[in-house]
C-alpha cells in the first residue's frame, strides 16, 4: 500500500516538475511550482519524512512562488510603460 502511494507521488512530482519547466510564462510557472511543492510535500510524507515535508510545504508551495510572482509584477510594471521595448522577455512565453 505504501509502495503504491510512493509511486503515485513520485509520478506526480515528475509530472509537476516537467510542467513547471515547460510553462514558459513565469506567472503560470509560479502556480505549477506551488503545485510541485505540494506534490513533494506529499511524497516526503509517504517517505516518512514529516520534518522535510513541513519545510517543503511552507517554502515550496508558498514562499518561492510568492517571490516569483512579486518579481514578475515588478518587472512587468515597467514593461507596461516601456512601449513594448522588451515585451518578448516577459509577456509572450
Amino acid at each position, binding site marked *: 500500500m505504501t509502495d503504491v502511494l510512493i509511486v503515485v507521488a*513520485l509520478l506526480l*512530482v*515528475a509530472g509537476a*516538475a516537467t510542467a513547471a519547466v515547460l510553462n*514558459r510564462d513565469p506567472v503560470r510557472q509560479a502556480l505549477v511550482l506551488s503545485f510541485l511543492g505540494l506534490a513533494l510535500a506529499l511524497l516526503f510524507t509517504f517517505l516518512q519524512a514529516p520534518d522535510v515535508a513541513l*519545510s517543503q510545504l511552507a517554502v515550496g508551495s508558498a*514562499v518561492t512562488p510568492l*517571490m516569483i510572482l512579486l518579481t514578475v509584477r515588478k518587472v512587468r510594471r515597467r514593461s507596461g510603460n516601456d512601449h513594448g521595448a522588451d515585451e*518578448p522577455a516577459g509577456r509572450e512565453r
Partner: protein
Amino acid sequence: MTVLPYLVAGWIFLIGVYGLVTSRNLIHAVGCLAVTQSSTYVLLLAVGYRNGGTAPVFSDAPTDSRVVDPVVQALALTDIVVGATVTALLLALVLQLRKRHGTVDPDALSELKG
C-alpha cells in the same frame, strides 16, 4: 520499484537543467533552478528510505522501532529553507539586471555586453 525513485530524481534534474539552458526569461530560469534543486531532495530521501520504517521521531514510538535514516532528512530539511533564500537572492539580482539593462532575457543581455 527498486530504482524508480532514483530515476525520477535524475529526470527532475535533467528537465530542470533543460529549462535553464533553453530559458529566455531569467525569472523562468530561477524557477527552473528551484525545480533542479528539488531533485536532490528526492534523491536524498529515496536513499534514506527503509521498507516498513517509521519517521525518526520517538515521542510516541518505542525506542527500538525501525525508523528511516534521519541523517539525509536533516540534510534535505536545512537545504530547502536555505535554498529558498538563495532563490530570493537570485530574484533580487534579476530585478537589479532589469533596472540596469532593461531586460530579463539572458540572450539580449549577452548581445548588450558584446
